[in-house]
């Protein structure tokens, strides 16, 4: 059976380009998928808006729907003043969406199945929340950790809980996306591998349609998960940004 982990390996392309802090920086398949995704997104957005027509073409409709969808998410989760973060949320959503879906291409590479990528994206979100929160509200931002209308003695317990919940946000944000993509692709690979194993095992080959059907179903599920996780990431980002805008409970 094929190694289900093999698909997550980074393949080096060419020699190390340069060094940062003792680490070789090399071009990889992951980097190519990221650049491909960015090129695809930019091409889609620019082609979709080049006509600027009053009655949208198909591509322009897609672009407008994406825009309205993310804008609605930001407005409902972060409020109207949350629209200043709209470019960030939109970039995160479309970047993760396209990378997740690109991972569904057979033989492709899932950039978001690497924890360092999802952790870095979550760090962007949480650093935006902290930096903007402190810049806009100063020390008042830390009121986020102090629930109002609670007995002072209770704060001894509640403040650490609030701090832990705040720290766990970037962790859950990154692990959720990483684990979903990783687990889904491993499951797909394993069930697809069963088809080959059964066919190679003589009479057992009669059972091979079962894992095939399961693989088809799982593929559909994985496409759903790919879209859903991008949406979840964008929604949670909006909710966390809401705290940066309105730190009071």
């Amino acid at each position, binding site marked *: 059976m094929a190694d289900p982990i*093999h698909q997550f390996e*980074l393949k080096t392309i060419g020699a190390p380009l340069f060094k940062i802090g003792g680490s070789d920086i090399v071009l990889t398949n992951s980097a190519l998928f990221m650049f491909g995704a960015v090129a695809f997104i930019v091409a889609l957005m*620019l082609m979709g808006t080049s006509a600027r027509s009053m009655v949208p073409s198909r591509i322009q409709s897609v672009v407008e729907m994406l825009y309205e969808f993310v804008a609605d998410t930001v407005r409902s989760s972060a409020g109207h003043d949350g629209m200043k973060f709209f470019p960030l949320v939109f970039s995160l959503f479309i970047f993760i969406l396209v990378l997740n879906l690109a991972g569904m291409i057979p033989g492709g590479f899932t950039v978001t199945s690497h924890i360092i990528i999802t952790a870095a994206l979550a760090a962007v979100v949480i650093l935006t929340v902290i930096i903007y929160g402190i810049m806009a509200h100063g020390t008042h931002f830390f009121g986020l950790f102090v629930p109002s209308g609670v007995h002072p003695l209770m704060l001894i317990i509640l403040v650490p809980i609030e701090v832990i919940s705040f720290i766990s946000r970037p962790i859950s944000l990154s692990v959720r996306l990483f684990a979903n993509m990783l687990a889904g692709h491993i499951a797909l690979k394993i069930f697809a591998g069963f088809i080959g194993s059964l066919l190679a095992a003589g009479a057992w080959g009669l059972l091979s349609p079962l894992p095939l059907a399961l693989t088809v179903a799982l593929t559909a599920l994985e496409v759903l998960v790919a879209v859903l996780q991008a949406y979840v990431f964008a929604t949670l980002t909006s909710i966390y940004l809401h705290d940066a805008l309105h730190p009071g409970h």
Partner: protein
Amino acid sequence: MAQTTNATTQVPASGGHGGGFPPFDSHTYASQLVWLAIAFGALYVLMAKVALPRVAAILEERGRRVSEDLDQAAKLKGQTDAAIAAYEKALADAKSRAQAIAAETRDKLAAETDTRRKALEADLNTKLAAAEQQIVDGKAKAMLNVRGIAVDAAEAIVQRLAGKAPSRDEVEAAVTSTLAR
């Protein structure tokens, strides 16, 4: 680096855990972070500065156009309503004027008929009075004639009975007294 990758490829599935598990291979982190920073940074700048303002401008322009069209439609509807109201007012005016004319004509005709009827009646009354007078006259004349016949008859009767003609005055006095009774 390339050799490390080859080495991991040959590790069987069960041995894929631990250091061989690619997402936890920290040697690749620096590269991934650099490319992510470049790719995502470029994407963010292009979205924030170019693509999203363009979409926003398109949507805003369309919203403006739609609201303008709606305003225009509301204005035209107002004009239509005003025209309908004016038409209905003109119709009502015409109806009331027609009714006034009809009533006036009816009254005039009724008055005319009335005068003509009254004139006719007066005429008839005159004729009736004349006829009645004629009857009265005729009656008086007839009565006069009756008296003459009575006198003649009485004279003739007396002559036959008495054999001699009475004086005319005596007979007339007798008839007059008898008639007066």
